[in-house]
């Protein structure tokens, strides 16, 4: 199989509200910077793929305007997934596996959650007959999963808080983080719940942002990057959606994806988990069998910034960036979409 690597990653600073730019205007500088970093022009990009959500953007065909920010002339080979941009990465990876002429691919994601109330908007991802008419917000749904973990005696609210503490501690070294700091778990546990047992620190912030990665195949990756982050395995799987049909303490699809990607059973230096809520981080550690000693979410994860529809792709970018910089040799990246870890993608990235 052809070898494909992530050779560069970039994103806008995670921020609560982008005061100036629209979606296309957020994407443009990220892509420009990325190409400059690698020293290629937009014409060297053979395939472009993005992820976004129309309901988050507030209008139909939301990604179309972003194409106008790419310098897509002469016309480009381009595609789009509705949803998390990690799936755009998957589409680009597949294309590179089967088309020799695609040597370099650009993948990006973007979203401005600040324009609406994302915890309510994303309710539209649920069953439109049985669930959406009740508007069960995303935090409440995550709380049902958290409760299942507590009831099963698998973990405690302190475990959740410790995950937040770890993420925000790591975020202190992330210059683009929206949130960071040294938190005291005891103090966190004294704060009120939003949807019990979840508190504010268990949830991600509202973030506006865009992100992008560049992929390159084989020799081209070597030529463009001293230390490419090779994609050794990449797979995604899905579970039934209805929470009342699932064992909420598990994420079978995350495990299946990890197994298919070859992520289980080998040592890794770092793991970036797309876990918007702290209990999901706990579940993923278990399902992906993250070995002890692995640094989890060195970027701060999505608790330092959650640019939705790009936040999963950022996880791949963060792992790759550390490999490219020589800070890690092997890492696992994870992305999710759907309520309570319904659909999961796992990738194994590795230096030479």
């Amino acid at each position, binding site marked *: *199989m052809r070898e494909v690597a992530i050779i560069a990653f970039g994103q806008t600073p995670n921020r609560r509200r982008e005061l100036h730019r629209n979606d296309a205007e957020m994407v443009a500088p990220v892509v420009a910077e990325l190409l400059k970093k690698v020293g290629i022009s937009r014409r060297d990009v053979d395939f472009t793929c993005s992820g976004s959500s129309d309901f988050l953007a507030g209008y139909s065909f939301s990604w179309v305007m972003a194409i*106008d920010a790419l310098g897509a002339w002469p016309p480009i*080979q381009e595609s789009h997934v*509705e949803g998390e941009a990690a799936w755009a990465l998957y589409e680009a990876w597949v294309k590179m596996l089967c088309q020799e002429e695609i040597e370099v691919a650009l993948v990006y994601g973007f979203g401005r959650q600040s324009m609406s109330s994302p915890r309510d*908007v994303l309710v539209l991802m649920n*069953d439109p007959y049985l669930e959406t008419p009740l508007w069960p917000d995303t935090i409440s749904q995550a709380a049902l999963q958290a409760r299942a973990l507590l009831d099963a005696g698998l973990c405690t609210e302190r475990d959740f808080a410790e995950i937040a503490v770890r993420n925000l501690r790591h975020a202190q070294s992330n210059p683009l983080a929206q949130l960071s700091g040294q938190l005291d778990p005891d103090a966190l546990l004294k704060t009120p719940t939003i949807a019990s047992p979840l508190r504010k620190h268990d949830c991600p912030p509202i973030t506006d942002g865009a992100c992008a990665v560049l992929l390159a195949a084989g020799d081209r990756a070597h030529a463009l990057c001293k230390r490419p982050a090779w994609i050794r395995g990449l797979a995604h799987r899905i579970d039934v959606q209805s929470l009342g*049909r699932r064992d909420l303490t598990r994420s079978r*699809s995350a495990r299946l994806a990890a197994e298919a990607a070859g992520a289980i059973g080998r040592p890794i230096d770092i793991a970036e988990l797309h876990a918007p809520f702290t209990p999901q981080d706990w579940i993923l550690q278990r399902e992906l069998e993250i070995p002890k000693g692995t640094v989890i979410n060195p970027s701060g994860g999505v608790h330092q910034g959650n640019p939705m529809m790009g936040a999963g792709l950022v996880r791949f970018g963060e792992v790759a960036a550390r490999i490219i910089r020589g800070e890690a040799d092997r890492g696992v990246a994870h992305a999710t979409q759907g309520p309570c870890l319904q659909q999961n993608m796992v990738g194994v990235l590795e230096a030479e």
Partner: protein
Amino acid sequence: MGNRCAVIGIGQTKHTDKRLDVNHIGMVREACNRALEDARLSWKEIDALVIGKAPDTIEGVICPELYMAEALGMVGKPLFRVHTAGSVGGTTAIVGSELVRAGLHDKVLVVGWQKQSESDITWALSPHLPFDPPLMAGAGGFFAPHFREYIRRSGAPDYVGIKVAVKDRRHALRNPYAHLHQPTVSFEEIRNTPMLWDPLRYGETCPSSDGACAMVLSSEKYAYHGSARPAWIHATEMRSEPTIMPGRDEVNPRAGRDCAAALYKKAGITNPRKDFDCAEIYVAFSWFEPMLAETLGFAEPGEGWKLSDSGATSLDEGGDIPWNCSGGVLSSNPIGASGTLRFAEAALQVRGQAGAHQVDGARLALAHALGGASQFFAMWIVGSEKP
């Protein structure tokens, strides 16, 4: 590079303005069940599913494939969603074929769908945004200025659009799945429909449909598993260009010309009119046929209308290069499925399964899907022979 891939199963729903008897799951499964039956495979034998539809505002569900995942047999498997505007049904098939060509899966189900009756399509496609004056009044209004420019440039007579509409509606009479069945359709009938977006008459526009179309794509290993011979995928190609580039040629978009050129090169096509036996082209409004005939190399610039006028694209007139024997988008338009339908109808032809709209002895067929402001192109070539 890349393994061979073939279409071994095809299924679609009867397209109609309102499928009130089924929900999303029921309608999508109806198409999938037919494709699986044609492929002589069961749901459980499918390795992965690629699903396409246009904006989620139409049904008011974000990524509905997530809640449908179990009913589509994908629990524990890979389910992939594509959205590239009107071209999405084509892109969906291409992404599915790449999963096979990359060697990741042997049996992939692809399905495009839309249930447009759940909302107002004009609202859903272009909800009115702040600071944006409401001018256009629907997709027909968006494209009408392009048609006027084409007519100005080529000197095409006004009746060519009517002729294309009559031709596709007559083709639709041969296709039991087509939405519009107008047994009495005639030149006069279309000409007498209201001029909605001058130069475009009501009769020259596509309907708004509920519908789905599915295909089973397989590796060489399963290529002869289906109930008919496989349709081999000879080449696929995609191109996109910006929306608001000054001087962009909306009438003959470069993305379309580049896409066709790259596709033809891959498959060794030098004269599309001669090399193909038939074509399924995304003609949502009548004037797209002559315009796309030029873009896709079936006619010289300015001459596309003569091709349509000559009857060359008509099955009923015994044309040498029939376009949209199924009735095309002008007769059925469940947006997310419309591209898949083009790709599937091309495959039906080379499999010899097209029934009353079969082109005798069709061996090589072109399919095309179009999206956005005539800016997204997805195409494939299928043939009865192995590439």
